[in-house]
């Protein structure tokens, strides 16, 4: 059985498809002849250019969802479409908050399983096999679906490069969202956007992250200062996000952002497996930690056994003196 058609969920953010959607379109067009993107939230015509450029021939547009959480509505619309006979072989879903909601709902509606935390895909005898990094990325598990298609794959950011195919805009087809009753009763009352300056964490060339080893919230300023001097973004371990030192949007790791910068600098971070999966893909890694046994050193190209309160201020001074 060949892979003919793949659908890619193209969630949007600030009026553009999320970067992972473009990565998944790039991968989908290498694996299937027909690639369709699915959008919601309005403005599909404006997205069709980019989605087409990355490989979508068609955009299924669900339109504005009126402030409802997308999970149940997008899943219901897609399930209806599949039941009507328009069957893709696979559905690629970016690992985002809404993406996970849609994948879970769609899986239950269609009664097909999901494979999540996918970091790679290969084709074997006309079948898709997914790769999953487990145990802190030390082992790669390869999995496959054994039942009816479509297979739903929830795929992590930066698993594939996004490359333009130079195609023209995709054609937009409107899908109606069915009435689903109580399951879609959750609605957004207000959005809060945290202020941010400098490059985005998941797009920055340099990421400087801080962890519990900083000792107190106010010392995070050292991390921000170093990031600023290197024209990078400031990240964090979950420990200091949970402690309320920095907003969640800074979190790097399994439940936070996946980053793949040229350089990642980990300051006072132990290197728990859930942190490593979010940053191990960096080209170069520097770690500063006072414990020579800290697991972060096992992935660092340059490991500094030392106190962040001594090393960082001197480093910042030296960089300032050069600029």
């Amino acid at each position: 059985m060949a892979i003919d058609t793949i659908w890619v969920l193209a969630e949007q953010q600030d009026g553009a498809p999320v970067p992972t959607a473009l990565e998944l379109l790039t991968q989908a067009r290498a694996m299937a002849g027909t690639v369709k993107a699915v959008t919601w939230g309005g403005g599909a015509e404006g997205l069709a250019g980019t989605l087409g450029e990355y490989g979508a021939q068609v955009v299924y547009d669900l339109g504005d969802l009126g402030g409802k959480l997308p999970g149940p509505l997008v899943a219901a619309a897609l399930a209806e479409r599949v039941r009507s006979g328009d069957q893709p072989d696979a559905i690629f879903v970016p690992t985002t908050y809404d993406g996970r909601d849609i994948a879970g709902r769609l899986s239950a509606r269609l009664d097909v399983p999901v494979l999540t935390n996918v970091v790679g895909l290969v084709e074997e005898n006309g079948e898709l096999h997914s790769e999953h990094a487990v145990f802190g990325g030390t082992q790669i598990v390869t999995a496959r679906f054994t039942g009816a298609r479509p297979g739903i794959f929830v795929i992590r950011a930066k698993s594939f490069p996004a490359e333009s195919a130079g195609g023209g805009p995709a054609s937009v087809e409107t899908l109606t969202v069915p009435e689903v009753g109580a399951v879609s009763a959750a609605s957004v009352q207000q959005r809060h956007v945290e202020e941010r300056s400098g490059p985005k964490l998941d797009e920055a060339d340099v990421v400087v992250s801080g962890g519990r080893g900083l000792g107190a919230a106010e010392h995070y300023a050292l991390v921000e200062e170093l990031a600023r001097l290197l024209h990078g973004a400031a990240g964090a371990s979950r420990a200091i996000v949970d402690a309320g030192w920095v907003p969640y949007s800074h979190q790097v790791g399994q439940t936070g952002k996946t980053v793949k910068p040229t350089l990642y600098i980990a300051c006072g971070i132990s290197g728990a497996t859930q942190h490593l999966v979010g940053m191990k893909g960096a080209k170069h890694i520097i770690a500063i930690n006072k414990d020579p046994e800290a697991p972060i050193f096992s992935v660092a190209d340059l490991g500094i056994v030392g106190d962040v309160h001594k090393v960082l201020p001197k480093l910042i001074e030296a960089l300032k003196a050069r600029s």
Partner: protein
Amino acid sequence: MNVVVCAKQIPDPAAPPALDPERHTLVRDGKLILDDSDAYGVEMGLQLAGDDGEVTLVSMAPNGEVSGLRTALAMGAAKAILVSDEALRGTDALGTAKVLAKAIERVNPDLVIAATESTDGYTGTTPVQLAELLGLPSVTFAKKVTVEGGKVRVERQTEAGYDEVECPLPCVVTVTAGVVEPRYPSFKGIMAAKSKPVEQLSVADLGLSPDEVGFGGARQEIVSVAPAEERGAGEIVTDEGDAHERIIQFLEQLKLI
């Protein structure tokens, strides 16, 4: 208000994990403990249930395991339902959701709480699959939860910050770490937990057919397990007051400065 909290019992995360050499599933032979991720749910549930309601735990685990449930009962949950059955070996996330849904239907709660993802499997879809099977709305990734006038109000994490989401009860909410600070069980709580009811059910008790769960029901399999490409450890420098100079050199080599 009556709250169901999904309480997963997992192998101690501090111990090195292992995969079954034949079917490649996680080995869960030893004693299991309450997943830390669910301790937040238990605490949230206890706070929301208030004096006129109670928290019922629902768990699926092998070998009639109750150690993790006792921890949550000691925190203050009133009772527990444990689904344990040899037929459940190899169940995937959707199958798990089917089992939890059947168990939860027996309680008919106002609110169901789960974690956004577990520590050991971290599939992260089980609670939403569960919500769909129960025909309930859901709000995932909650960092703050309050209930007022038959509605739950949630601060839900987003890429850019957070959304204020409102949802009528009954519904499913998944909580992140940091939503509340879990209490430590008191000595009194630990003693009381010993006599709290734990109802143990099998797949047949739930009215599920054995082919909906277990390896057969999963309709997915692990083909292989291989070591990942290793990232070799690099140079280690012990700071003698001049380590920043080595970092500067490194930055120069990368042409970042």
